[in-house]
């Protein structure tokens, strides 16, 4: 007699695959605003030693339509695939957080096991605009804010682009801003900072120290007084990952082509920065609809510690990678390495 199919439902609310799960699931951030019918992309990784066959199903927020909402998938042992779903009917929400549910049902003779992940995703895209980099966040109302919480403190990432610059505003809720150099000793004191990495689409971070970096990596810190800020370039494509992973002094890494202004209002520190596209243009071409990778670490050493957009965006624990980020003197690193630096981001048209 054949046994009835057994269906197990496992909720993966925190994005951590449980031991014994056949697959891990993750929804990528949207890179196109909901009204423009973005593709919703599900990453699925086979955690088994053998092949996996199943169906991926996507449930959208109210008002959205997914057609078709089911797709077959087959994976070799350890293989990861991206499965795209067409969306329609989505509208922008001011909070820029959209609740999706993705599930994967295995197809086996004994029945299927269903893994479910509920995940709120954001539209991670930079509208076209030319802000003045002065530390005043007033010009950023037409950006698409991406917010996440770590240790009860809020971080909001906003981006703009134009032909000449990629611009970033990071609003960091924190008790105190620690500037670089306030004690007179630049590298010995832990400082607040924002560390970002930009990489071309379809690149992967190496896993060997001998591999080459494929990222442009920058650090922004508050210096002196007022809205003074400084940018340092930590890595560029071609650099050995081992070199980037060494803990280096920031002295000599100043990047004068970038602009940085850091201001503080109440409990919020605003890092407003711009990075010139020209040195990156052959790898990341500034044009409408361009997709690339953009990742952020917020350093709050006397508060929450490191705030990692990779974790908030739902990367799997297996995607932590010590070679993904440069070490620098003045940073306070956690016990575990940060997540990978390959988070989806887009360049889009202006809001109106």
């Amino acid at each position, binding site marked *: 007699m054949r046994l009835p199919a057994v269906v197990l439902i496992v909720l993966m609310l925190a994005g951590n695959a449980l031991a014994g799960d056949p697959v891990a699931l993750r929804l990528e951030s949207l890179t*196109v605003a909901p*009204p*423009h*019918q973005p*593709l919703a992309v599900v990453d699925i990784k086979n955690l088994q030693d053998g092949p996996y066959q199943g169906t991926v199903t996507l449930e959208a927020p109210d008002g959205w339509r997914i057609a078709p909402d089911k797709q077959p998938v087959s994976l070799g042992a350890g293989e990861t695939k991206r499965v*795209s779903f*067409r969306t*329609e009917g989505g*509208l*922008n929400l001011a909070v820029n957080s959209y609740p999706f549910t993705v599930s994967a049902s295995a197809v086996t003779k004994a029945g299927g096991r269903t893994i479910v992940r509920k995940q709120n995703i954001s539209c991670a895209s930079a*509208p*076209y*605009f*030319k802000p003045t980099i002065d530390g005043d966040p007033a010009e950023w109302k*037409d950006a698409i804010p991406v917010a996440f919480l770590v240790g009860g403190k809020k971080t909001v990432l906003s981006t703009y682009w*134009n*032909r000449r610059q990629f611009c970033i505003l990071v609003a960091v809720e924190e008790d105190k801003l620690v500037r670089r150099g306030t004690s007179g000793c630049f590298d010995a004191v832990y400082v607040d900072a924002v560390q970002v990495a930009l990489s071309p689409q*379809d690149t992967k971070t190496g896993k060997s120290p001998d591999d080459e970096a494929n990222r442009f990596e920058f650090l922004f810190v508050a210096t002196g007084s007022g809205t003074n800020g400084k940018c340092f370039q930590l890595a560029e494509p071609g650099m050995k990952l081992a070199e980037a992973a060494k803990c280096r002094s920031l002295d000599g890494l100043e990047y004068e082509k970038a602009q940085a202004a850091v201001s503080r209002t109440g409990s919020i520190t605003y890092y407003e920065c711009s990075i010139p596209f020209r040195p990156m243009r052959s790898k990341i*071409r500034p*044009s*409408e*609809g*361009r*997709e690339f990778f953009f990742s952020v670490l917020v350093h709050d050493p006397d508060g929450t510690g490191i705030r990692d957009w990779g974790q908030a965006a739902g990367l799997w624990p297996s995607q932590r990678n010590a070679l993904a980020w440069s070490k620098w003197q003045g940073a306070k690193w956690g016990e575990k390495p940060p997540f990978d630096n390959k988070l989806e981001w*887009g360049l889009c*048209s*202006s*809001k*109106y």
Partner: protein
Amino acid sequence: MNYRNSQSWTKLLLILALTCLGWSAARADDAWYTPPAKSSGEIVLKVVMVEDEDENPAAAGKQAAKALEKAMGSTPLKAVIVSECFEDRQNKEKLLSGICSVLPKEIVLGGATYGSFTQKGCTDFDSVCLLGIGGDGVAVAAGLVTNLGTAKLLFEDHRELIEKRLRAGGEKLAAVLRKTDNDQLLVLIPDAHSPKSQYMVEGTQKVLGNQFPITGGCANKNAGQTFVYFRGKAHEDSAVGVLLSGNFKVSLSGRMAKDNEGVIRSANEGAAEAMANFKGKPAGVLAFNCAGRRSKLKNFQDELDAIQKAIGKQLPLFGCYCAGEIGPVDSLEEKKPGVLSRGSGWHVMFTVIGR
């Protein structure tokens, strides 16, 4: 006679020819018309594209205009449609002044786009593409509506107001374009990106009818870049219509896609369908394409290669990357029975013109 004098004389003769042929201005927001087409007259479409490597938009405009003038040979221009992607108003105006230093500004129309493509390649940075329309076999009516009142309205917040204003704008625009038995194609260039553009198309269809062939592309929607061009001048929150008339035919096709393979495949299918449905000798191809589609391509050239497999490499091809496309929509959800053209996104809209 030196070259400069030759150019000046050509320009003067062109203006005189337009005047003698009865080119006239009318007042709506603005409109102008050429005389009716001759039944057996020729239809000449020529396309040129210039990439500016020197950050000198005026020189690029002048170079493109001279190249178009040369390509047209002895055929007087009736209209020039501009697709350009220089950054900021000052550079766009320098470009227009360069174009209009060679060609009569009265016939220079078009819009800011995200780039252009022709048989010679694709551009997305500081470039201009010109479509020259000439010959006794084609007549042009061109119109402008301004102050649409929707440029700063968000679709999700002001949908009803956008619908009302753009339908009215579309109707007004179509009404100033003379409707004759010989009207064949409306090229619509609105500062009203997808999904707003659909309402403007519906407005024009109130005058022209649901089966009238309409194609076109929405202007670049980036802050400070949103312009349409009429009589060589930039206008915001406006729309330009170019109605082509004469004893010729058009064949339209549209396809939608959102991934690399789909964009390449759909471009080939759409172009092939437009060619297959065209019974006659094509004179040129218009392709209003989505900038979002381009962004999904690993290599821009792959889509152009797919188009060229369908239309060949000889026909003049005027392509531009837009913020919304107008033509026969591909999506079942968006299709409407009895309606040929609609405004949408993620599409490439082909039009084959010829006799």
